[in-house]
Structure formats: structure tokens, C-alpha cells
């Protein structure tokens, strides 16, 4: 398999992020929630990335924050994909009223801006990770629904699906064995993009004070905690911002690659 260098970089970085997220508790040099130094120390031998506004170790918080960020974004994306693609495939395969109802509900949900729904919901619901994941996942599932439905529609008219139906296969086989394997590539690529949007969305929510709650912090929350230092070149704010960008870029690179593989599978002209 030929992997272009950009995708390779993306894969390696994504791997590093995931590794550090999984083994966060082993990798953290200090407790993420206890002050171990003074405010905003610069990088040093003891604190590789310096300390934050109340003297906590940035590297430890970055690792822990990465775990939270990736966990929440991943869980929300998985939820939105499970919901979105299930209903999307169902709509495409069933057609008729099922499709109409699902599609109109989706239109309805999309018409109300998700950030605003999130703001309103999160301002009244108890703030914890489960609620956060649920809200984000459900809101995002509309986008996945649209894509999954469109992709499945294209596949559902293929003759091999017709052949399976004519054979008398039940919809379980049609969805999971005929459609899903062929819809996977565009969905995987979309998963990468939605994951990134989820990361950015959590950051935004944290910025507005409705995201992950302290002393835990996602990267967006860390930027927020330290944002006043941004104008003074304090690394505490730059490092998590950089981490977000790096994660986003590397996942995007991988997604782009998956997507380009998909389209080359479909074949260009000639």
C-alpha cells in the first residue's frame, strides 16, 4: 500500500496523540490538578512545557487534557456516527415514509444552529462528560445522517444490492453486508472531519464556560485558562492551542488520504 508522506505524518502524529491519550495516567510527570510550581513558569528541565496560571505542570495537564479532549470528541463522534449512519442507511434502504420522516426531522434539527442548542441545553443540564457527549453526539448526528443517506442511496441502486434483494435477503444483510462495507471509506473520512469538528466544538464550549469542567480541562479549556498570557507570549496558552491545531491537522491529513483513496477506488475517467 502506498502511503503519501503527508498521510504518513498524519498517521504518526495521530498515533502519538492516541497513545498518549490511552496511557495518559502513566505518562503524566506530575498530578494534573495540583500546583507544583509558581504561576506561568517558562519551560525548564523540571517542567518541560512550563506551568500554568496556578502553577500546575503544563505537560501533565496537556496529556490529561488530551485524554479528555480525545475521549469526549471520540465518544461524541462515535455516537453521532452510530446514530447518523444507522438512520441514514435505514432511510436509504427503506425509502418512502420512513425516509421522508427521518429526513424532515433531520432538516428540522439542522435548521436550529447546533451551537445555540448546545448553549441552551448545557446551560440547564448538569454539566458532566456524559451530558456533553450526548449533546454533541446527537447534534452532530444530523450531518452524518445526511452523508450516510446520500452514500447509501448511491449504493442502494447498485445492481448487487438489487441482486441481494431479489435473492430474498433481509434488510440486516443488505445494510451490514452489502451497503456498509462500500460506504465505509467516505464514512471513515467523514469520521475524521467530524472528530475534528468535535474537538473544536468542545473547545468552543469550554471557552463559553459550558464544556469540560475544572480541574479537568480539555485543550480548549486550557487555552481559555491561560489565554490572558497569550498576548505576553506565555507558553501555557500557546501549547494547548498548538496541540489542537496539530491534532486537527494530522487527523485531517489522514482523512484526506482516506478520501482520495475512496475516490480513486471509484475510478476517474479512462
Amino acid at each position: 500500500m502506498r502511503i503519501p508522506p503527508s498521510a504518513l505524518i498524519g498517521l504518526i502524529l495521530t498515533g502519538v496523540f492516541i497513545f498518549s491519550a490511552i496511557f495518559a495516567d502513566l505518562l503524566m510527570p506530575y498530578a494534573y490538578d495540583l500546583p507544583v510550581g509558581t504561576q506561568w513558569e517558562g519551560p525548564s528541565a523540571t517542567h518541560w512545557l512550563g506551568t500554568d496560571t496556578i502553577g500546575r505542570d503544563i505537560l501533565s495537564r496537556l496529556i490529561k487534557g488530551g485524554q479528555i479532549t480525545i475521549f469526549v470528541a471520540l465518544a461524541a463522534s462515535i455516537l453521532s456516527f452510530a446514530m447518523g449512519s444507522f438512520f441514514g442507511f435505514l432511510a436509504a434502504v427503506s425509502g418512502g415514509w420512513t425516509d421522508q420522516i427521518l429526513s424532515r426531522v433531520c432538516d428540522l434539527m439542522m435548521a436550529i444552529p447546533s451551537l445555540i442548542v448546545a448553549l441552551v441545553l448545557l446551560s440547564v443540564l448538569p454539566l458532566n462528560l456524559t451530558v456533553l457527549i450526548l449533546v454533541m453526539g446527537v447534534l452532530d448526528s444530523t450531518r452524518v445522517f445526511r452523508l450516510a443517506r446520500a452514500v447509501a442511496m448511491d449504493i442502494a441502486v447498485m445492481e448487487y444490492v438489487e441482486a441481494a434483494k431479489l435473492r430474498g435477503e433481509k434488510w440486516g444483510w443488505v445494510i451490514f453486508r452489502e451497503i456498509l462495507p462500500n460506504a465505509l471509506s467516505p464514512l471513515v473520512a467523514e469520521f475524521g472531519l467530524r472528530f475534528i469538528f468535535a474537538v473544536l466544538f468542545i473547545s468552543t464550549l469550554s471557552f463559553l464556560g459550558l464544556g469540560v469542567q475544572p480541574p479537568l480541562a480539555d485543550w480548549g479549556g486550557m487555552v481559555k485558562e491561560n489565554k490572558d498570557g497569550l498576548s505576553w507570549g506565555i507558553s501555557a496558552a500557546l501549547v494547548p492551542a498548538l496541540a489542537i491545531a496539530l491534532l486537527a491537522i494530522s487527523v485531517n491529513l489522514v482523512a484526506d488520504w482516506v478520501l482520495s483513496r475512496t475516490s480513486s477506488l471509484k475510478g476517474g475517467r479512462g
Partner: protein
Amino acid sequence: MTSEKPLLEIRGLVIEATSYPPGEAPKNVTLVHGVDVTLQKGRVLGLIGESGAGKSTIGLSSMAYGRGGVRLTGGEILLNGREIREARPATLRQIRGREVTYVSQSAAASFNPSKRLMDQVIETSLSHKIMSKPEAEARAVMLFRKLGLPSPETIGSRYPHQVSGGQLQRVMTAMALCPKPDLVIFDEPTTALDVTTQIDVLAAIKEAIQDTGVAALYITHDLAVVAQVADEIMVLRHGKKVELGTTDQIINRPAEDYTKALVSVRGIEHDEKPEAPPLLRIDCVSARYAGTTFDVLKNISIGLPAGQTLAVVGESGSGKSTLARAITGLLPPTKGRIHFDGRQLSADFAGRSRDDLRQIQMIYQMADTAMNPRQTVGTIIGRPLEFYFGLKGSARDKRVQELLDQIEMGRGFADRYPAELSGGQKQRVCIARALAAKPKLIICDEVTSALDPLVADGILKLLLELQAETQMAYLFITHDLATVRAIADKIAVMYKGEVRRYGQKSDVLAPPFDDYTDLLLSSVPEMRLGWLEEVIAHRKANGTTSGNTV
């Protein structure tokens, strides 16, 4: 041959491309291995071969154009005495559209859907500053008229989708001739058309070439077609020249075995079986698509005995594929009944028993889309075994291998994916899948249309053998009369949703004909010089025109 300097001279042309086989490292493949082509001004050279022979690639190389990442890596291409293989893009832009123009197989796809025809036809003349806009438009109208297009004055103001396929193909020819090029490449210009349409377009192209005196490369896989227009024919195979000669010599005295095979293709003979009680009986079936107001099937009544083949013939839009959908229950008829094996079938496939579904299998035209690209051949063939007969594990694998043997594919195919197979192999796998269900009836929907003639012959032979072995009945849908002759016991000729002629093969193919059947039969190109002129002359004399307002 004259001593005049040739218009186009290609020497030792080598063309390569990179292929990306699934699961393997990309590799270089050579598409054309050192081919020489010489074309004098005003002459027509036919390039013929199966798919993959490199004929289109060679044709496009005369514009130094490599389609889809194809690279012209070796040899010389001299156009009007100038080497163009390694010319700069700017130089090539001067040549393309001015000295050499191109007519593609699918005019429908080759016109920009969002621009008016006239703008596209005269675009080259204007961008190359060959003539002024009024001059170009006048020339375009002249060409439209010459090519026999209806209302030549106004057709240019239409959009591509407002014009039929045959007309578009002629407009595209006009587009190629408009800037007064030295050379036109015709790349399968009539292949996508119905036979009755093809003959008119072919005649129009031939006349236009003669009138304008332009040189042409005529690329096709159909020897009978190229024989009508070309002065010389080059037979290509696997990117190499097989034989080059005058049209007369190639058709009548082919030297190479391969050429002989091409000439004698469609040589399958099949004696029709006698009348017998029908396995499948269709009574007064009409059908229409949801949301439309007209019937696409009108009162169809036909029958098919067990172990026999009923060929349903017709052009595109005749309703022959819709008939297949009605029989399978994908499009429940609005009227009429379908009897199978002595019982009435539920109109909708969802209402049919698993055994009913098993008894009627279907094979599609495009084997590519008929197989799930994410399943192995073993799964594709094995699934009906599992589904209908509950075969599992080694019993299933054994049966899969038996079926593979039956379709003359060897060991090791069960683990491959469809993308790793050739076109003919794919269609064979589809046949095996149908076979796996042990059906009494197989509906074959244009199963050979997408295949090269020799490969198609192989498939037809296989089908006949299988029929002899298993006594399956075939409902064989096709537009190709040669195929019909080869395989049918009974024939139904369809036109605009109706059955125009139905009966035993020998009856249907014998005069007296109705108008449509006559037109259809007489439009099938015959592999002899002068056939085209004869038919056109005959039609002019009789005042008959083609069936469609092409």
C-alpha cells in the same frame, strides 16, 4: 502510395501508464509497444481491436494527449512534419483543436451541459482565431445541414440535453470539422448508438469526410462498421500491431489468425428447439413507473418453454429491460399476470417465496456493478448456496469450486475480489452466482453488450453449454441481432413498450417483415465493402427513413 509527405507519421510509439492494483505496489504498464502509423492527407485509417488494444491511446497520441495520466514515453509523433511528442503545452494547445480534432464515443458526455451547442461548436474556431464569429456560425450551420441535422439554423441554440444521442454525435462531428482541421480522430463515434441510428450517423460522417477532404483516424471495435468508412485498416492487439492492410484485404483476405477470428466472429450457430409448453407465461402485462403517466410496457404476452431461450430484442427505450424488472417483481405490473412453472407469481418480489426467488435468477449487463466490490468471488458465489441450501464451511467451498470449474475458471479465484478480474471473468462469476441457485430460468440482460466480441462469444458458448447440461431457460435481452441469431429459440421484437413481432426464431427472421423489424434487421452492419451505400440507396429509393427522428 504517393511520395507526398504524410500528414501524420508515428514511429516506434511507446505509451506507458502507472497502474494501482488493489493491495499491491503501483507498477508501470506498457500500453503501446512501438507502433508505427502513417496517414496521408485526406485518407481514412481504421484502427480496430478489442478493449485494451491501445487503439484510443494511439489515436489520442496524434494530438500528443495522454488520457488519465498515460505517458507517451518513446518514439516519434510527426504531425505535418513537426515532432510533437515532447512539445511544450503552449505548442500543443496550438495544434489541438486547430490541426487535429476529436470526436468521442459519448457525445452526450462530451458536451458541456451548461453551454449552448453553437457556443461549443465554434469555440475552437474563435479561441484559435481561425475565423470570425459570424463566419464560424455560418460554417457550423452549413455543417449541421450537411450532417443531416433537423433545423440546422436553430439547433445551435439548444443545450445538449435537448438533443437526442444520434443528433449529438453529429453535432460533435460538426464541432470537429468546424475549425477546418487536417485530421479528425473518430473514437467509436457510433458505438453508443442504436443500430437504426448508427447507420444514419455513419453515413453522415462518411459523407462529411468525403466532402471536406479531411484525413481521419477511425477507431472502433466493430470491423463491420470500420469497413464502411476506412481506406485502410490497422488491427491492434495488446498495444501491438497485428496487421495493416487495405480494407478490402483485411475483410476479405485476412492474413493473421487474430484478424481471421475477428472477421469470423458471431459464427455461433444454434438450432432452434421445437415449440413446447411454457415455463414462463406472461399474460397481457402492462407496467409503468411510479409518478409517470404512461405505460412503459403495453399489453405484453409472451411465453418461454423450459430449457429454451427467448430473445427479447429492441433498441434503447423499447422496454425490454423493464420487462425483466416486471418478471423479477422489481416493478410490479399494473395489469396482467405472470405464470411460472404452473403457478401465478406474486407481482411484487417481496411477496414471493424464497423458492420462487431462487427459481428465477438474473445476470446483468455490467458485471462491475452487479458484484459487491467488497466481497470475494467465494462469498459472491457462496452466498446463494448458503442462503438457499444452507451449505456451510467446506461443503460450500467445494460447491463454489465446482461452479468455478463449470464456468471454466480455475483454482484460486475464490479468494479474489471482482476488481482483480477481467471483464469476461466477472461476467462468468455472475453466471456462476446465478447457477448456484439452481434456477429454472435465468434472465440475461444484455450480458454480452459490454464485452469484446471474442469474449462475448465465449460467454455465449458457455451459456449454451450450461443450458444443454442443466435445461435452464434463458430470457435473453439484447439489442444485438447477431447474438439473437446465435442463441435464440424464440424471439420477441419490442418497440416502444410493445411486442412488434413474436414467435419461433425461424419465423421471426423470415420475411415478410413489418416495417420496424425490416428497419432493424437491415440496419445491422454487414462485413462487406459497399454495404452502407447499398442500404442508404435502397432506403432512399423506398422512401423509408430510420425509425427514430434521430
